[in-house]
């Protein structure tokens, strides 16, 4: 599956987008309505005054009016809010303030409309100031009255409004994202509970069930609990089965072991052929017992019935005793921190790890030559080193598989090891939260080095 954004991120983004659309829509409507409203009102009030001014002008001018009179007239018109009057009289254009607004600033289209005898108005920007320009034609004389009403105060108001709306929108979006995160977390919390329960089950606590889940997730929690019960039932059945198998296998082995010991006591009384047969029987019974023991041990992992029983012990003494128990006295080395280092581990399982690694060295490499204990920051490494042929890189992973006899041993070599020793090593170490690997020797000599890494926190 392609990588997907997390649910929480998606919900938050959705809330953010929703807030954005809402805020932008409302802002746009507010802005447009306010703008229309303000402009219309300004134009309405202006128009009334412009009409009044135009009437004033029409009453005061006739064909004999001089340019001087007109100039005076245009200066004296009542023009609040900085409105700029312009009078056309024939070809003469007169404006109250020629620099700010005069004939060239009047839009040609407006001029044409007014020239056709229609009153008209246009809104446009001159320089940087927006104006509403109104033109009134006269019918009895060749003249027209224009007035440019500046709208810059409205523009200022509108830009303030725009800033306010943008700020409001941004806040809304942020609040939306915030609510999204909060809501997503609320929504995801029951899922987190389920996740924790699943982790608890995976970690071995099979009694974990979901309780009092959100009503919306009732079906999910119900089926989750059903699944957990089914899993628990199956594991318990499997464990019971393994336990029964154990009993059924060990009982006849008990009879065989005891009877064989009785026979071995009288080995001298037996004919040579029978002695040979007895030796074969003994050897394979030992092998079979080890195989059964290893199979039962590893089956506990398969049915999920393997549980650590940890205790504290000194690792150096432990390693030394393990070597002695295996009948070896390899060179024992350690890093400075390993001296009197106490580890918390399952002693029985770790003893089996050591025994199996030492036996492996015996069977394939002529015995271990060195055991090295290295204390690292949060782990301890136990290296079992031999001087055998080493392990080919392609075999280094599969060597820990069950019955992986690989290149190291021909099929005829049955009898040395059960084929489960290293697999059990891997299982035991993994149960401790550690790892096991095989490498070449660090000193460049021929041989293999099996390194068991255990965490020091003693979980």
């Amino acid at each position, binding site marked *: 599956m392609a990588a997907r954004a997390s649910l929480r991120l998606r919900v938050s983004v959705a809330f953010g987008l929703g807030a954005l659309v809402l805020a932008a829509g409302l802002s746009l409507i507010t802005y447009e309505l306010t703008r229309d409203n303000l402009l219309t009102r300004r134009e309405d009030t202006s128009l009334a005054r412009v009409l009044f001014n135009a009437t004033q002008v029409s009453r005061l001018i006739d064909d004999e009016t001089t340019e001087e009179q007109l100039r005076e007239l245009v200066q004296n018109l009542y023009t609040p809010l900085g409105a700029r009057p312009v009078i056309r009289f024939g070809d003469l254009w007169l404006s109250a303030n020629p620099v700010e607004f005069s004939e060239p600033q009047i839009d040609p289209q407006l001029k044409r409309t007014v020239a056709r005898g229609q009153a008209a108005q246009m809104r446009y920007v001159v320089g940087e100031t927006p104006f509403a320009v109104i033109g009134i034609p006269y019918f009895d004389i060749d003249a027209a009255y224009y007035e440019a009403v500046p709208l810059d105060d409205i523009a200022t108001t509108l830009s303030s409004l725009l800033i306010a709306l943008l700020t409001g929108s941004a806040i809304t979006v942020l609040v939306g994202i915030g609510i999204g995160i909060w809501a997503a977390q609320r929504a995801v919390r029951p899922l987190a509970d389920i996740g924790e329960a699943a982790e608890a089950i995976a970690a071995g606590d099979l009694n974990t069930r979901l309780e009092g889940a959100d009503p919306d997730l009732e079906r999910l929690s119900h089926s989750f609990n059903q699944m957990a019960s089914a899993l628990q039932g199956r594991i318990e059945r499997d464990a019971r089965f393994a336990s029964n198998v154990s009993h059924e296998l060990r009982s006849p082995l*008990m009879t*065989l072991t005891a*009877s064989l010991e*009785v026979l071995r006591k009288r080995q001298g009384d037996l004919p040579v052929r029978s002695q040979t047969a007895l030796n074969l029987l003994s050897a394979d019974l030992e092998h079979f017992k080890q195989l059964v023991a290893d199979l*039962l041990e590893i089956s506990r992992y398969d049915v999920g019935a393997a549980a650590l029983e940890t205790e*504290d012990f000194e690792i150096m003494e432990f390693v030394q*005793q393990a070597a002695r128990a295996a009948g070896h006295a390899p060179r024992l080395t350690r890093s400075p921190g390993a001296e009197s280092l106490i580890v918390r581990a399952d002693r*029985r399982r770790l003893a089996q790890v050591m025994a199996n690694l030492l036996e492996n060295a015996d069977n394939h490499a002529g015995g271990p030559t060195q055991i090295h204990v290295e204390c690292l920051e949060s782990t301890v490494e136990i290296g079992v080193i031999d001087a055998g042929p080493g392990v080919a890189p392609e075999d280094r992973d599969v060597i820990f598989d069950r019955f992986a006899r690989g290149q190291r041993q021909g099929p005829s070599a049955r009898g040395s090891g059960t084929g489960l020793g290293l697999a059990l090593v891997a299982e035991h170490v993994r149960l401790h939260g550690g790892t096991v690997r095989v490498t070449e020797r660090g000193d460049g000599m021929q041989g293999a080095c099996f390194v068991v890494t255990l965490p020091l926190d003693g979980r």
Partner: protein
Amino acid sequence: MVAMATRILTVEDDERIRTSLRLALEDEGWEVEESSNGETALNIFRRNPADVVLIDIMLPGVDGFEVCRSLRRISNVPIVMVTAREDTHDIVAGLEAGADDYLTKPFAPKELSARIRALLRRARTAEGPITNFIFADLEVFAEEGVVRRGNEDINLTKTELRLLVELASSPGRTLSRELLLERIWGYGYFGDSRLVDVHIRRLRTKIETDPANPRHVVTVRGEGYKLQP
């Protein structure tokens, strides 16, 4: 001199195992008496107490734990539990029912003999056999296996007594589980330390006034146990 052979009572329902064990144990020099279920075993023991009892946990009718508890009510005889399952619960339950040691099938009869010999060893310290001694408010009569507090007699099994004597031989010093395993049960470094833990627990319930807060048999975390006055 007529040396009485040590008698072992085996309680085992599987006839083939029972017979083969008898043959092998007789080869080791023990006298063996067999029983196929718990009731018979208890009757035999009441009539003629054995020196050691070997009990299989999985028995028809009265199970091995119950046989063990019944035996403990009438005797301090050394008991070895036999289990065909390496189940922690079974082993701890067997020891708590009063067994002194346990073995997992299939075991070598030689191994069983070694276990029996260890259990039959007398209480002794490194300096030699011990007689009676007084420790705190306890009076220990080693020969009889009796500990007396005031006028009250406390009955200890041989293994519990040896554990107490071992701890008392160096009071105040911490003895590791491994050391106790070796001295009392004859196991090496890799013996099952649960043997020590369960026996310590049993010893506490007998000699401590408040077993949950022991004053005499004290646990030293990560090191072992010590006895203090």
